[in-house]
Every structure is written in C-alpha cells, then in structure tokens.
C-alpha cells in the first residue's frame, strides 16, 4: 500500500492512498452503461473486459483488482448509464479487502432516462 500525502510527495499529489478495489455491478436488461463512463478512485474501469457470461453483470475478474485512489473522504465513484422507467443497477464494492458499508449502492432511472452516480464512498 502506498501512502501519498501533500507533505511527503512534494509534487502536488493529492492526499490519499492507493488501495486495491474489486466490484460487482448488476443491471436490469435495458440499462446501457456509457462507454468510458465508469470510474472508481480516478481509475477507468474496463467494462468490456469485465462483462460476465450474463450480459447484465460485470465484475473484477478473479485474482485481479483495480488500484484506486482512496481519499480521506472516501472513494470517488462515477457511473453514467441510460435506461427505461423501472430500470436500475446495483454496485457492490470491496475496498482494500473489506466490503464498503454502503453496499449495495442502487440507482434507478431518473426523469431523463439516466442512471448516473457521482459520489464519494466511505471505506470501512
């Protein structure tokens, strides 16, 4: 684990540390996740590589994890998606080996047909 603070890096690095993150994302069938539209801790998630046999499920492949920036306030998670009324997606995160307290995050279609999310998620 690498700790980065403004005091010790001297190069304008943001406060926080890099931690391994894994996820499981499930969606209802009409939901489309926008290309390049999923980031965790400022790391772009490769959706095409993470798609499971079920086309509506995405997950970090076994033995793999994303090295994400965990800030003091939490892990920045952004996801942009589109869908129809009644659609939803759910996201379960494991930050540094521990399930996030907010699991599962669930987002439903808004009035414009979007299922967008951009928030800091606290780790245990």
């Amino acid at each position: 684990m690498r700790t980065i603070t403004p005091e010790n890096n001297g190069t304008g690095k943001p406060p926080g540390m890099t931690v391994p993150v894994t996820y499981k994302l499930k969606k209802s069938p009409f939901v489309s996740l926008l290309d390049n539209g999923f980031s965790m801790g400022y790391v772009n998630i490769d959706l095409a590589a993470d798609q499971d046999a079920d086309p509506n499920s995405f997950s970090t492949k076994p033995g793999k994890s994303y090295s994400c920036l965990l800030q003091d306030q939490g892990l920045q998670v952004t996801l942009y998606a589109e869908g129809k009324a009644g659609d939803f997606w759910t996201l379960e995160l494991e930050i540094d080996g521990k399930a996030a307290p907010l699991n599962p995050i669930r987002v439903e279609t808004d009035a414009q047909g979007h299922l967008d999310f951009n928030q800091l998620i606290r780790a245990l």
Partner: protein
Amino acid sequence: MKTLFLTLLTVLTMHYITKAQLVAEDASGESSILLNASSISFNLSEAALSANWNNFRKLAVEKPHQMLWGIAARGSNSEGLSELFNGGQFTPQSRIGAFIALRRNYQNSTFELLKRIRDIQASEDFPNEAAINTVRQLNDQIKSMRSQQPSKALTSYISAGLNTDNFRRYTEENSGSLGGRFSKVSFRGAFVSAGLNYEYGRRWTFGLSAGYERYNNLDSLSARDYKLSNTTVIGNSQLSTETTYHAYAGEYIAYNRINFKTDALYFAKVSDDYRLVWNTLFTRVYLPLSENRINRLVQAGTAVNFYKSEGKFAGGLYAQSDDLFNNLHSSDRFHERISFGFVAKYAFSSIMSRDFPK
C-alpha cells in the same frame, strides 16, 4: 438466394450444435430468445423451437455508434413440438432469418467528455491535485449537461430470411384415386424488411418497419385428419390397411405482399419487483400484390406486458382488431372483429429488443 440460404444454413447448423441446450428449452414455447427475435416477426402463439445468435450483449455498453447483427431460426408444426432440422430437412414450418442494424446514441458531448476524463486518468503523472480538479470539473459539466438532455437513440435495421411450409393438401379435383387427393405442397417463402427504432427518454420507444414477403394462405385453410382404408379380398381372405393423412382443405394461394408495422412502447415502473411495457398502439398493414383473391388487411391493437424488474416476462394482456376496416367481411360489427387475450410471450414486431435473461 441459394448462396444466402446455404450460408445461413451452415452458420445456423454450427450454432445449433453448440447451443443445443438452448434449443431444447423451448418445447413449451418458453424462451428468452423470442423477444430478441422480434425483428423477424415470428408467430409466438404456437409452440415452437427456436435458436438465436446475436451480439446484443454489446448493448450493455453504449457507444456513439454500434453495429448489431443476429441470426434467428424457428421451427414449428401443428403437433406443438418440432425440431428445426430433421434429418437435414426443415421441419414442416420453419423460418430462418438474419438482421443487421446500426445504432446511434445522441449523447455526443457526454461521450467526448468521458473520453477526456479517461485520457487524463490514464496519463503518466496522474494522480495529481490539478488533474483531479479537472476531472471533477468535467464530471460537473457532464452532470449539468445531462440534466437537460433526455437519452435518445436511433436504430436502423434490415432483416431478411426464408420460410418453408411443407404439408399435404386435400383436393377433390384431378384425382384418379382417393389416395391421389392428398397432394404434397412445399412452399418456399422469403422476406425482407427495413425498420427504424427511436428511443426517447425513460418512457418511449417507437418502431416502424416496411417489408416485402412471399407468403401463402395456409393459416386460412382448414386442417383435418383423414383416414383412408383399403380392403383387398382374395378368395375368402380379406386384407385391410389404413393410412392417416393430416391435410389442409380449401383454396390454396401463394402470393407476394407488402407489410407495414408500427409499435409505440411506453415503459413504467409498477413496483420494485415489476415493471410494465405497454404497446400503446400497434398497427399491421398487409397489402397483397397482384392477387385479387387475397384481401388487404389492417390490424391494430394495444397490449400491456408485465416483466419482473430483472427482465423476465411475467405475462400480459392484449386487445386487437384483427380486421380493422372489415376487408375480410367477416362481421359488420366492429366489436366482433376484436380479439382479447392473455399472452405468455409477446414480440414487438417492429422493435429490436434487448437481451432478456431467462
């Protein structure tokens, strides 16, 4: 046409082998395949077997432009069970088709900003305070932009295929013997159609398609089982044999026709577990070409379909006028030309559907 047929047959046979378990699921007409085979307009009210191969899983990730393709096949017969291929032959009624589609999503600026965010996050000196602030600003920009813009997507497609009907027809003309009255008919049809689907916001999907097809009036012939008994007497011995024919009686016509179809789907959430898709108004227009014995036909209706929120079809209701303008002169009363019913499966025949899990 022969080359196309052989190509489709080869591709499908390969698929049939690799996905045999998929094909076997459908003896009771229960399969997720039927929904995304909707562009090929199968009749879903009868038991059938179908196989389907497409790249709909790519739709889970939306891009500015996407190419979609698929192959679907279906076999059925009046006994309710069938095999698509039986000793290398098509079964009595079967249909095989392919489509290719181009999908365009109209969130161009969002896609561009997301690409910029990806590039910043992938750069070597990332993460740094300045870059993270830029990413934050870009995300804010996307948020304010998207709050003004409903999602919009247009899919244009072309589908084409072949269908067959092999059956016996009963005629009283030109037959020297009773057995000769049962003639074999092999109908080979073909269809091609083009369509557009437009998705707007969270509520609506509109579909329209126009097509040309070689068709026959098998649906309107009456099917019966005939038993033909033969008795041969030699001396004081008598030998009896019996042959059963399942045959269709009536005037048989093969003809060309043009079809137009429209659908307007409205999506709503019913509860956390259920959602509905209401086909507010669907229309089907069939115009026979240079065939006076077949009437023009206009059908219209409405259908409400319920789905479990994870996508499984839960049932539906429909009301349809099978002959809106009484072209068939079946009844002068409008209400008598309306049919109602429950549906176990429903295809939106001018809409390209997403992949529904079983």
